[in-house]
């Protein structure tokens, strides 16, 4: 699948094949005995766990030591403190997902200025430039993920229908791209559809925001929510309100997968591949540490996940067995509660 978006500064995407490691790279990396630190927004989500798994597997092969994995708990202050502290440890590289925009920009810049290779995941604070301020950005093709979600929802919409778009209030490259792509796909392919947008501040408020949007526009026939966790809050809120509307989103979380498989409100998902993204960032990191050329932006294509392919997609994304509920819904397991 091709990459449809452009990078945060208009860069063209390089595919993950571009940063594949050859046997001689791995041999050289083992001799380098590199030390790397990882700073993530959270360690509790499946997405973060799979990223870490991909990173660890690759660094394990290259015998690079991961000296610390920091959970910032989505807090910019915690990230700034972690980056400043890690600079003192003088690792060869730091892999970070910036949790905010301007408030964490300088802390990231200080890492590069200290001679530590900086690799970013999913987000680039405004003003930071590839080459001088960081090595590369590794992310999903978020623009492509937005178009996948739009195409799924369009199948469920009658001519002239109205759709609610729940966008994230914070300034974040990935969610911005998804929202813009969803809107563009609808404008281009379904100009009859009317879009009503509302911003949510946190996952917990997404459900209430969806209901507020419905009270403003009673004829809403579907929703797009920019990632899966708030999307499931929307699904729960709609259930409580006695409404059944198709919802599309991005990321194949466990609850969203179960809902999709069981013909719930989730009718299609654009899924990232966090394990492969973890491998990609680790490979880019190794190449940079070996003095090889690396692209400014490496993007991984998204997967279009429907109820027809949810089992194999789950395995592909999460590298583990799909939840029992998904397997039962897909009629791959008997339902123990059935007579």
């Amino acid at each position: 699948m091709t990459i449809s978006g452009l990078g945060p500064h208009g860069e063209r995407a390089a595919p993950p094949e571009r940063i594949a490691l050859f046997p001689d790279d791995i041999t050289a990396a083992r001799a380098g005995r590199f030390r790397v630190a990882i700073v993530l927004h959270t360690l509790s989500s499946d997405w973060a766990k799979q990223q870490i798994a991909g990173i660890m597997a690759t660094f394990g092969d290259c015998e690079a030591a991961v000296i610390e994995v920091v959970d910032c708990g989505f807090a910019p202050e915690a990230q700034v403190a972690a980056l400043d502290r890690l600079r003192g440890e003088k690792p060869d590289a730091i892999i970070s997902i910036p949790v905010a925009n301007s408030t964490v920009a300088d802390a990231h810049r200080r890492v590069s200025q200290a001679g530590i290779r900086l690799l970013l995941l999913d987000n680039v604070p405004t003003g930071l430039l590839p080459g001088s301020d960081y090595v590369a950005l590794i992310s999903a093709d978020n623009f492509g993920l937005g178009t996948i979600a739009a195409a799924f929802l369009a199948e469920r919409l009658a001519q002239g229908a109205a759709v609610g778009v729940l966008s994230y209030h914070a300034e974040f490259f990935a969610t911005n791209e998804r929202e813009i792509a969803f809107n563009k796909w609808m404008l281009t392919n379904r100009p009859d559809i009317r879009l009503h947008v509302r911003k949510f501040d946190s996952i917990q408020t997404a459900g209430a925001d969806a209901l507020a949007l419905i009270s403003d526009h009673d004829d809403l026939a579907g929703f797009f929510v920019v990632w899966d966790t708030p999307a499931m809050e929307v699904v729960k809120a709609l259930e409580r309100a006695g409404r059944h509307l198709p919802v599309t989103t991005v990321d194949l979380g466990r609850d969203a997968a179960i809902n999709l498989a069981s013909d719930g409100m989730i009718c299609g998902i654009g899924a990232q591949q966090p394990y492969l993204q973890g491998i990609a960032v680790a490979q880019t990191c190794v190449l940079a540490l070996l003095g090889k050329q690396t692209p400014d932006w490496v993007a991984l294509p998204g997967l279009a996940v429907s109820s027809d392919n949810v089992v194999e997609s789950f395995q592909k994304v999460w590298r583990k067995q799909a939840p029992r509920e998904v397997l039962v819904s897909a009629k791959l397991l008997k339902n123990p509660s059935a007579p």
Partner: protein
Amino acid sequence: MPIASTSGIRGKGRPTTRDSAAASLGALFNLIRSGKATTRQELERESELGRAVVADRLATLSEIGLIVESELGIASGGRAPRLVRFRTDLGCILVATLDQSALGVGIADLSGRLFTEHHEAIDLGADAASTSQRILSLFDWLIAKHAPDMPVWGIAVSVPGPVTEGDEMPFMEQTPSFLPAWEGFPFVETLVDRFGAPVWLRSSIETMTMGERFAGAGQTARNMLFIKVGKRIGAGLIFDGRLYRGAQGASGLIGQMPVQAGDRASTLDVLAGSDMIAREGLAAAQSGRSPLLADTLRRGGDVGAIEVSQAAQSGDPTSMEILGISGRMIGHSVAMLANMLNPDLIILSGTMAQTNDLLLAAVRETVYGESHPLVTRDLIIAKSQMGSSAGLVGAAMVVVESLFEPGCLKDWIVHGTPLAHPVFLALRKACAARRAGIAAGQDRQAIAP
């Protein structure tokens, strides 16, 4: 008593205090806006106006809503002074950059600081109406996301080629000629009509020059030469602190200058631009002359000008030689300009210039070697630190500089918004009428047999 409260009715032919004070209001406002003066004492010193006049004008500016005077500054002996600040959140600025294959958009506050930017692929060869519609959609999205309650004070769009029109008086009245495929399309009129704000079009080299002048390395330079190295090589000129556009808005097309490399004679674009660098780099990769570029090719990567630049920075001798040839050739042309213009600062920009030091070194060597000693005595030659965001930042600065230019400012400052400028109000009506006329003409054509 603040002058805003004075009556506008006076003796016949005698201007009101408010009208006659517009110039000093504008002067004080620009001192505050530019940060040159942030307290009453500094304003008195910088403007050379008396205490009572400064107090009166500040009261007016506060009443109009353009400034706030609340925070306390640092005391230098007595009481801490109140800081005067321009309210940059009174409106927003929409900006876009168009090139052959990508569209960039952004939204900025009235200081020109970008809130966010977004880039996506387009085909500029497609019809103008659909590209224009896409820009409108993205502007709508930016406003909804970042400034739902802010009026748009201005819009600037950067386009690939020269914008062939002289200076606007003071706003762009109709779409100038800038690309053959857009000929006859009412782009400026559409934007004015939709967002109710003045519009400026500038070439990409002009907006990047403005970005560098106001947010990059050129912030203290009065005379700056900005060189963009890409497929085409262009120059932007800041002359006495302001962008110089030339008689037709076509200054700086230095890529058209004839140059010679060995026995080959052509233009600077052809012999030193990114196409030459990419071609030579690919040949070096395929022949194995450059092991680093050959390795990139082996990994399935493209070998283009950017890869050659990165390889040169990593010490690849062949890539260094290719960039050296390009840099020296650009340096010859830049030295000629430097001898004629005597700039304080020369900035090299473009991905190739920014990803390595070789191009910069070759340009420096040639310019210093071929220029008069007086020209190079204090001359700084550096590379841009702004990257591809320079165009969007510069487009925002085109709006800021145009709106707050003293001649324009004095005609709207008493209204508190440039959207109430009498010339702009008339222009809006003219734009709407012209768009309606074009639409009617199209309708007539559509029903003609």
